């Protein structure tokens, strides 16, 4: 079935259209093929790009105002505090390692906190905020692991719970805490009350938008006479685990960064309760299977379920690890999870401690 639709253009326009079609290599192809090719850019968006585009919008819609309000509340503390730049060594060691501790399900499954606490690991410990209390309670303390850091980038008030325990106060003075300039002031206060030394950092969100960006404006506002360069800024990869990995090699300048508890997936139907939502719908439909894929890790023969947020995080982290492999060796000692592939060495935690104990 077809219908006729009239159109009217000038002779000059027709000539230019024909010329363009020929120039683009479509002289012998149909008009429809050529028009389709003109819209190819929109069609070629990968699933990863699509997920990133959607989460960029939902994250900005959800948190942008909160980032600005928190930054405003923290500004006086930032101006009178330390910059994370102060942690960058003048002469980085030619071989040094750190281990990032996440709170993914593998951390319990493989007793990794216990294994690390009983080890003689000499490198740096970087706890994600959500793992801090459990790490300390497991014996991973700054008494035994002298180079001890914790990081918070999340901006919600609930993050203060990560520091709300007597054991944090017990060891606070021996722990260096890296805080995003956009964390809740409640988080900052509980960190300060624990005795930790705070080092401020910016998190990159919109710096590519130029002088009108929040990053540019907040960067300018943190510059003072005593700190004319303000704070450095890091990629977060959307989550604190990736931020801790970035801190390991970009701030602390370690040549090797290990990961534990960084699964970016679930081993069963147990789901994270924070921001991960399972929408209503047919979980057996093809769109659900694409949004919630099962990822088989052939190295440890385990299968994880990802949700869109974990896809968002893990796609970026894997891409960044590969791109950064000329600067840092990333060793995933999680013994499972979804972070494997090009540029990622997967070993057991025991072997990480044995082989990268510097």
């Amino acid at each position: 079935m077809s219908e006729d639709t009239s159109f009217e253009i000038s002779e000059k326009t027709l000539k230019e259209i024909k010329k363009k079609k020929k120039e683009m290599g479509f002289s012998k192809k149909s008009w429809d093929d050529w028009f389709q090719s003109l819209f190819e850019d929109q069609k070629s968006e990968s699933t990863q790009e699509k997920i990133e585009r959607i989460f960029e919008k939902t994250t900005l819609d959800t948190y942008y105002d909160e980032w600005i309000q928190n930054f405003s509340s923290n500004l006086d503390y930032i101006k009178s505090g330390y910059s994370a730049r102060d942690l960058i060594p003048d002469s980085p060691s030619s071989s040094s390692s750190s281990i990032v501790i996440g709170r993914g399900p593998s951390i319990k499954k493989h007793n990794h906190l216990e294994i690390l606490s009983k080890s003689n690991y000499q490198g740096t410990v970087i706890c994600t905020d959500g793992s801090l209390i459990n790490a300390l309670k497991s014996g991973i303390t700054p008494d035994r692991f002298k180079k001890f850091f914790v990081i918070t980038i999340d901006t919600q008030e609930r993050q203060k719970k990560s520091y709300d325990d007597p054991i944090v106060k017990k060891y606070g003075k021996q722990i260096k805490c890296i805080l995003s300039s956009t964390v809740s002031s409640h988080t900052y206060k509980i960190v300060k009350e624990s005795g930790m030394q705070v080092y401020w950092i910016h998190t990159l969100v919109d710096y590519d938008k130029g002088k009108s960006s929040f990053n540019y404006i907040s960067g300018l506002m943190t510059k003072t006479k005593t700190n004319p360069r303000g704070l450095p800024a890091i990629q977060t990869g959307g989550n604190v685990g990736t931020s801790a990995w970035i801190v390991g090699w970009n701030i602390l300048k370690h040549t090797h960064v290990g990961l534990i508890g960084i699964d970016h997936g679930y081993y069963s139907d147990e789901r994270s309760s924070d921001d991960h939502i399972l929408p209503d719908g047919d979980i057996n439909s093809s769109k659900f299977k694409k949004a919630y894929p099962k990822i088989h890790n052939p190295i440890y023969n385990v299968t994880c379920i990802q949700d869109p947020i974990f896809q968002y995080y893990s796609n970026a982290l894997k891409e960044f690890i590969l791109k950064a492999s000329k600067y840092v060796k990333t060793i995933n000692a999680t013994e499972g999870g979804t972070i494997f592939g090009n540029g990622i060495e997967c070993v057991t935690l025991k072997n990480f401690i044995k082989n990268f104990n510097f």
Partner: protein
Amino acid sequence: MIKGNFKIKKIEQNDENQEEREFEQLIERSGAGSHMVFRSKNEDDEFFIDEL
């Protein structure tokens, strides 16, 4: 001026596009990340910027 005619073929609803739209809606309803992935035309800026 030149007059012409488009001969338009009507096709059935594109199932693929429909599924992609539903997939996007599903992603939108799955929550928000705690932070966001930063992208830049200059890839070197994507990891670390010493001074904003």
